[in-house]
């Protein structure tokens, strides 16, 4: 299935958000996720199914002013 991760078309085997996080090697990192501009709390990752074309933002802390 093709989804868009951080603006890039990405082919993944995962069908839910939890498995996508694992597949793309984000496991254990400090990240937050939005699917189609809606924030998905960590507790709902497994229950969040993905569909072709979903736009997923995976973000982490950075320096800021």
């Amino acid at each position, binding site marked *: 299935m093709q989804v868009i991760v951080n*603006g890039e078309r990405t082919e993944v085997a995962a069908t839910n958000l939890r498995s996508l996080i694992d597949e793309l090697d984000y496991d254990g*990192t400090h990240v*937050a996720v939005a699917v189609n501009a809606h924030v998905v709390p960590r507790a709902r990752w497994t229950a969040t199914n993905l569909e072709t074309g979903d736009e997923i933002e*995976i*973000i982490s802390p950075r*320096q*800021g002013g």
Partner: protein
Amino acid sequence: MVSFYGRESKSRLLIGTALYPSPAIMQDAIRASGAEIVTVSLRRESSGGRVGHAFWSLIRELGVTVLPNTAGCRSVQEAVTTAQLARELFDTPWIKLEVIGDDEILQPDVVGLVEAAAILFKDGFEVFPYCTEDLTVALRLRDIGCRVIMPWAAPIGSARGLVNRDALKLLRARLPEVTLVVDAGLGAPSHAAEALELGYDAVLLNTAVAKAADPVGMANAFRLAVEAGRLALKSGLMGPRDFASPSTPIVGTPFWHAVS
């Protein structure tokens, strides 16, 4: 003490975490500044990346309170979603709300700012809006619930100091109950002292410290300037006069009123 939505801070200096020469210097500068609140941002993490994780570890070591920002957002929707991501990531209702309206001078889009702030308050956020010195915008922000308002002194990173001092004074006079923070445009410790002398509760800065030749020394200088400005305000500053007034007593001046 100064209150930010009920969080009391002894320090009146808030500091950013960007642009330092190294992570170690960033940590040392933040410690030297005495700041209890630091700003952070959120950015896309690459697959397998650990960049954010490493940065977050450095911040946690400092034991400070984080104020995430929505830097770079150019629409209400982007800012609202970024704020929601920040709440999830940093586990805080605080958000430094930036909605940028112009790329050249990074001027806040104050119309979008007020709209986004209203949405976020309804969603349970405690908003720190980055705004211009415009009085009516600040009044709107107060009316929708902002107990902290952060007008710019000058464009971000410009080091120009308090360009519109009269308007900043007016904001202070008209919003006595709001925690007012001068955010952006400060270049020298004297600018920070001036803001505190005007009655501002605090200043927020980043570039002036991070890009100094010695960021740790400059962080110290800003800490002292903020303390000096606040102490001067509390001690009662004299007003300006049009003419001279001698400080040395006139009575007893040699040859004064010489006997004729």
